[in-house]
């Protein structure tokens, strides 16, 4: 019983931590972008301001119940996913889910969002979703190969085990030093999954008016901002857990997660975007090839 209670506490705490870290990740992303463009960039609490403002809108419009539920699922799915992602000192229910579950659980928010957007009856939104799902199909293939490689390498799908194994021998047993090729492919896939340039065809503001977000105002958009911070957090922490030995303590954990996230973000703002079919072609070619080579090394 004690354990259950503790687990529940962790499950409650982990999303809160994730949200806070996620907000800073959003900030970091925007700051980096600004720096790259030789701007000052937003102030420290800008992500929070945005969210509070959006929730504080006086009039809000909704296109129906599914529109609402979409946002709920988008946020809720990530809240749940965070409980599966171990952080230093807290494992949550990572042992009861594991890597595959996490990979699939992170689809729940996207699909919830997709449902909500569909309900809006806005063609831009639908086009956006169609593109988003297409790019999910594109980047999930290398991603899933990477997951297989890691799970096979550590012969476990339990993230706690995977992290423990990596930490056991220091840097030399980290995923990145044992499977460098897979790590590169994983980074690529992670970048694509973030939906930043050059893989943001489904947002394409000038073309389809931010796609899925086209009808989202007020707290709907606020929910999506929350989701974004969770998304950045999940992606980077998952990568850290798979390849960088997770967090020995909070300092290294934060360093690693922010560091990992910085890479795609820096790359992102140097690029325009790919067309959908180009995106698919690119992602199915390079990261998949890398991942397969990586797998070949792992399987030996």
């Amino acid at each position, binding site marked *: 019983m004690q354990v259950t209670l503790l687990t529940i506490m962790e499950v409650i705490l982990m999303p809160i931590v994730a949200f806070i870290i996620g907000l800073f990740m959003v900030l970091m992303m925007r700051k980096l972008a600004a720096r790259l463009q030789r701007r000052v*960039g937003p102030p420290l609490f800008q992500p929070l301001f945005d969210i509070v403002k959006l929730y504080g809108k006086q009039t809000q*419009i909704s296109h129906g119940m599914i529109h609402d539920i979409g946002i709920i699922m988008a946020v809720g799915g990530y809240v749940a996913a965070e409980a599966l992602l171990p952080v230093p000192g807290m494992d949550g229910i990572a042992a009861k889910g594991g890597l595959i579950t996490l990979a699939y659980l992170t689809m729940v928010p996207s699909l919830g969002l997709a449902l909500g957007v569909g309900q809006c009856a806005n063609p831009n939104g639908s086009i956006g979703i169609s593109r988003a799902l297409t790019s999910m199909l594109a980047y999930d293939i290398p991603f899933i190969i990477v997951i297989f490689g890691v799970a096979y390498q550590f012969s476990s799908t339990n993230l706690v085990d995977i992290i423990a194994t990596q930490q056991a021998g220091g840097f030399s047993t980290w995923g990145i030093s044992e499977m460098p090729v897979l790590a590169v492919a994983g980074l690529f896939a992670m970048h694509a999954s973030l939906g930043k340039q050059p893989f943001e065809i489904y947002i394409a503001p000038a073309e389809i008016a931010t796609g899925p977000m086209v009808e989202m105002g007020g707290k709907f958009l606020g929910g999506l901002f929350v989701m974004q911070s969770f998304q950045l957090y999940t992606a980077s922490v998952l990568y850290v857990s798979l390849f960088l030995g997770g967090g020995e303590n909070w300092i290294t954990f934060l360093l690693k997660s922010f560091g990992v996230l910085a890479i795609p973000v820096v790359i992102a703002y140097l690029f325009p975007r790919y067309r959908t079919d180009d995106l698919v072609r690119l992602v199915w070619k390079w990261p998949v090839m890398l991942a397969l080579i990586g797998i070949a090394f792992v399987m030996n």
Partner: protein
Amino acid sequence: MSNTDLSNIEVNQKPVAKRSNPFANVFNELVSFCRSRSMFMLHYCTGCGAIELPPAMTSRFDMERLGIQPMVTPRQADILLITGYVSIKTLKRVILTYEQMGAPKYVIGICSCTVNGGMYWQSYATAKKLDEYIPVDLYIAGCMPRPEAVIEGLQQLMAKIKTDEANSWKKYYEHYDYYLGNQQHLFGNNWQTPTDIIGEAKTYQLEGPNTLGEHTKILESVQRPLEPLEMKL
């Protein structure tokens, strides 16, 4: 043209009642502060003024440091920037767009054209005074105003928002009949936007004595129904 000119009439300013709960007050102030520090703008590039916005956003002047970001749809935006002359056809879209924005929403008229028609003041096809059709919070005059001026204007707006003074959007709900009358005068009596302003005003208790009137009656007589699709079992 409509009988009354509202452009200078202040909104029936219900002073924000200080609530007894100090925490609620703090919360309200926090929200107002956040509103002022996070302004998503939709620049409706009707004319030449639009060209001055990119410099305002990019590295030279960097609006983002003030929390101002461009957005692409009215649903997401707080500020509507009308950057130049508004032809009658464009005006329809401007009104549609304005009505689709979520309140609190602010309108900034950039360039002289939005103030009085500017160099198009003789044109038959141009709406001269923007605030006869939608309430405008702030004009930034000039032909065209430089980015510094734009940012200066935005900062003024920020200050007004912070103190809850930028309430022109309430005017639209409270005097909807007036605005609708002007719009009908220009577009004919069949004029209708997809947004149900009256319903919105009722839902959010933003009605004033002048929300409904003769023009809204005309509207009701010609209106295609706009009730949301209810979920039916």
